[in-house]
């Protein structure tokens, strides 16, 4: 392209010189003729020659201008052609710089990991980050569906029980539990079952102070939690007509020790608290009235109660006899000025592989005012459960086999004996943990509960329970019905009843 553009002006210059060289001798020959013909024709020729020279000069300037433009374009072209290469080189240089920086940083991290941070140091750093005070949430939530045939009621129910655990150090902690439920109506109700400080004084002695689950038997402390209870309902002696109060406000001393081989333990709990109280909504005390779940402020200095519980574990773990727990509890206090409330109970729990069973018997004595007859009560339950996780079912499809291994079959028999019940306290409203069956409130209530638990996780369970209520005849029904004194009427045979409950419980 360069060569072609340069050839054309060169040929023009050559042609111009040729014309000029030919014209001069020609015009020289013509001059002698002009002498003859005159000066005017020579002047015309000279003007033409001047014009040709001017044209030639102008052409020469244009050629030079074109060459400059061509040179400029060629230079720009070279610059354009060389630019991508420069950019690429520049980008490569940047990449190399960044790579070097990354490599240096990586080497620094590797050096820190290999030379300066051990597991202990990392753990220590995490501990410092988390802080010395530890605060965690546990608890449970459960939703259930309840159907009772006798009352022809069915409902959904929900309870949420968050448990707050706070650990200050190895020997001081606090725990508090809130309870939120949705009773009949349109609003929630809230409770405070536990709020207790704990001081671990040494390996054998612990001091607790505050509001705590009654350490009488195993039920309130160890078995009443939603996901821990194998059933949806409580055994009758801890249900609607409980025979000992569920909570206490006071002080505890407790501890345990190993008396023989590993697994052979003995432990104790002893406590002093505000003591029992009975339904204060009634105009006057009456046999069969229900216990208050807890007594708050008590100004009566005679009202304190004292309790003791001892558990004994006879089998060493290596004996392969399973884990047997034998327990005994007492709980005595004055519920009204000088009137006594006394109770005692024995219980057991046994675990061996997939079999677990537990049971309890308890009885109470309540001294009534004004020489009235004693308010004695007895209650018991016997519970049996078997986990199907080791049942071999090779003939079933694998998926079905897996589900069956998550099942636990359960049966429980429980009952309560008491002289009377109070009509004003009978509630037919179902709620979580109770079918609301009227038969539960019979003075001689009996219940067979059959259950199937499907364990989704160790603390998540879908439970289904069939309650068969078989109350016995006898006893008295007291009814205030707005009056200051109750009217008594004998209770004859009470109808049997059935209830079905199903529940999803989650422990977290």
């Amino acid at each position, binding site marked *: 392209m360069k060569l072609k553009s340069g050839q054309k002006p060169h040929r023009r210059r050559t042609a111009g010189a040729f014309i000029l060289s030919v014209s001069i001798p020609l015009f020289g020959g013509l001059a002698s003729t002009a002498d003859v013909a005159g000066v005017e024709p020579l002047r015309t020729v000279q003007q033409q020659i001047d014009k040709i020279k001017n044209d030639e000069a102008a052409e020469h300037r244009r050629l030079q201008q074109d060459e400059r433009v061509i040179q400029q374009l060629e230079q720009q072209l070279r610059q354009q052609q060389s630019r991508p290469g420069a950019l690429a080189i520049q980008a490569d240089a940047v990449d190399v710089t960044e790579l070097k920086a990354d490599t240096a940083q990586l080497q620094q991290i590797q050096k820190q990991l290999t030379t300066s941070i051990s597991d202990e140091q990392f753990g220590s750093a995490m501990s410092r980050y988390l802080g010395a005070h530890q605060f965690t949430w546990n608890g449970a939530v459960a939703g259930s569906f309840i159907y009772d045939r006798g009352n022809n009621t069915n409902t959904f129910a929900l309870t949420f029980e968050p448990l707050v655990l706070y650990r200050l150090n190895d020997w001081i902690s606090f725990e508090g539990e809130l309870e939120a439920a949705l009773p009949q109506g349109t609003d929630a109700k809230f409770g405070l079952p536990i709020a207790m400080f704990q001081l*671990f004084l040494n390996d054998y002695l612990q001091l607790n102070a505050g509001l705590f689950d009654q350490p009488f038997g195993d039920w309130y402390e160890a078995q009443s939690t939603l996901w821990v209870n194998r059933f949806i309902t409580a055994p009758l002696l801890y249900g609607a007509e409980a025979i000992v109060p569920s909570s206490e406000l006071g002080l505890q001393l407790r501890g*345990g020790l*190993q008396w023989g081989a590993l697994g052979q333990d003995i*432990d104790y709990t002893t406590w002093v608290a505000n003591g029992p109280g009975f339904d204060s909504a009634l105009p006057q005390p009456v046999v069969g009235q229900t216990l208050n779940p807890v007594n708050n402020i008590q100004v009566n200095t005679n009202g304190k109660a004292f309790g003791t519980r001892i558990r004994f574990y006879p089998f060493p773990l290596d004996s392969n006899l399973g884990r047997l727990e034998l327990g005994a509890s007492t709980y005595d206090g004055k519920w009204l000025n000088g009137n006594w409330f006394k109770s005692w109970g024995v219980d057991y729990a046994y675990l061996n592989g997939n079999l677990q069973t537990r049971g309890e018997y308890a009885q109470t004595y309540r001294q009534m005012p004004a020489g009235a007859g004693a308010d004695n009560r007895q209650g018991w339950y016997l519970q049996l459960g078997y986990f199907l996780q080791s049942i071999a079912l090779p003939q079933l499809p694998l998926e079905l086999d897996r589900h069956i291994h998550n099942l636990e079959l359960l049966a429980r028999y429980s009952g309560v004996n008491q002289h009377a019940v109070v009509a004003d306290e009978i509630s037919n409203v179902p709620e979580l943990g109770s079918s609301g069956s009227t038969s539960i409130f019979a003075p001689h209530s009996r219940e067979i509960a059959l259950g199937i638990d499907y364990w989704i996780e*160790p603390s998540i369970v879908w439970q289904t329970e069939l309650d068969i209520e078989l109350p016995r005849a006898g006893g008295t029904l007291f009814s205030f019905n707005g009056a200051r004194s109750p009217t008594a009427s004998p209770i004859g045979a009470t109808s049997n009843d059935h209830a079905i409950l199903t529940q999803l419980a989650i422990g977290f």
Partner: protein
Amino acid sequence: MIIAISAVVLASGSLIPTAPAAEQAAQRQQLIEGAHLWSIYCNQCHNARPGSEFSPAQWDAITMHMKTLSNMPAKDMRAIKAFLEFGH
């Protein structure tokens, strides 16, 4: 349970390498005992929950709660706690 104890036995061979031999053996014994106790003591009342469900800091608080309810000997609770926190 046997699997849990076996895993602890195998894994505890790589316990803190800087600990003296006697201390290392004691820690290993504690872990084995903890695995054994965990499967029985916890199941006595409820299904035993694996250590991976909570962080060591949470287990510190939870085991104090369980110590209160169970009244189990303190050394047994320390063994169970060591087992639950092992491997975090």
